[in-house]
């Protein structure tokens, strides 16, 4: 998939997941890679940037099995950003879908005409 595209999508996915509940890094990677193939390591620099841009905050929380984990929580700024990205994504994906399906129908039309 196009590189530029994927990067924006990764940010969108992270914010959407965090809007549902606080997560630790691995959890998000796990969830995202179920759906799309990503280079898993890239999520940590992304999280760092989101934290710097005040879209998420992080805190340590004990876990039953092992040392404490670093959890991330979305902020109001992050929620606002997420809303914007989701709206952009919806508009974009609907546009592409319309185009793809319209083209498909035209192709079918051509075939039936012959």
């Amino acid at each position, binding site marked *: *998939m*196009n*590189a*530029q*595209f*994927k*990067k*924006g*999508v*990764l940010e969108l996915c992270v914010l959407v997941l965090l809007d549902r509940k606080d997560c*630790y*890094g*691995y959890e998000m*990677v*796990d969830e995202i*890679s179920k759906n799309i*193939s*990503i*280079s*898993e*390591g*890239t999520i*940590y*620099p*992304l*999280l*760092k*940037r989101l934290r*710097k841009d005040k879209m998420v905050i992080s805190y340590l929380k004990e876990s039953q*099995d*092992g*040392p404490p*984990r*670093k959890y991330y929580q979305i902020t109001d700024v992050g929620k606002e950003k997420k809303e914007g990205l989701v709206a952009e994504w919806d508009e974009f994906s609907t546009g592409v879908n319309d185009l793809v399906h319209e083209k498909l129908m035209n192709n079918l039309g051509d075939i039936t005409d012959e």
Partner: protein
Amino acid sequence: MNKDEYIEELNKLLKKLPKEEKADIISDYEEHFMIGIEKGRTEEEISEALGNPKNLAKQIKAEYMLRKAEDKQSAGSVFEAALAAAGLGIFNLIFVAVPAMLLVAILLTLFVLGGAMVFGGIYVTLVTVLKLILPQYNFYITTYNGVLGSLGGILYGIGLTILGLALLAVLVYVTKWIYGLALRYLKWNLRVIEGKKRS
């Protein structure tokens, strides 16, 4: 690559970052390995999925330099950020480093020109005035003779100085603007690179 090898490699590649910054980053990846192992994946599988440490380190370094450039505005830091971004690949060498160097060169030339105009103006004014006061000395420069000529020379000198100062003022403004623009461009650029599919 197993966990220790991966972490070691990353550590080595990030050796230029400040200690706490590096420790913070490494701890993220150590946690990632630990949880992955708990979930039953092998160290090799996790390394593979994380992606090439070289690419990762480049991305981390570029992000770090960019953040530094944002926090502390200086020509050096934005240049470092551009260089780090350029390290991400030949695409960036062409699309980041070359325009950055060109811009810096143009700005530098204009700054020198502005400075020369200011000093040149002051010089012409001074010499003309001095010649008016001490006509017996030869200042080894073609200046203006006679009262009218001297007046013209002084006005020319002052005008040149003011023009030079105006140019410098505009340049400072333009440079600040370009600085902001450069940061935005680098950020966009990073986003493009980061999205690269794992190989």
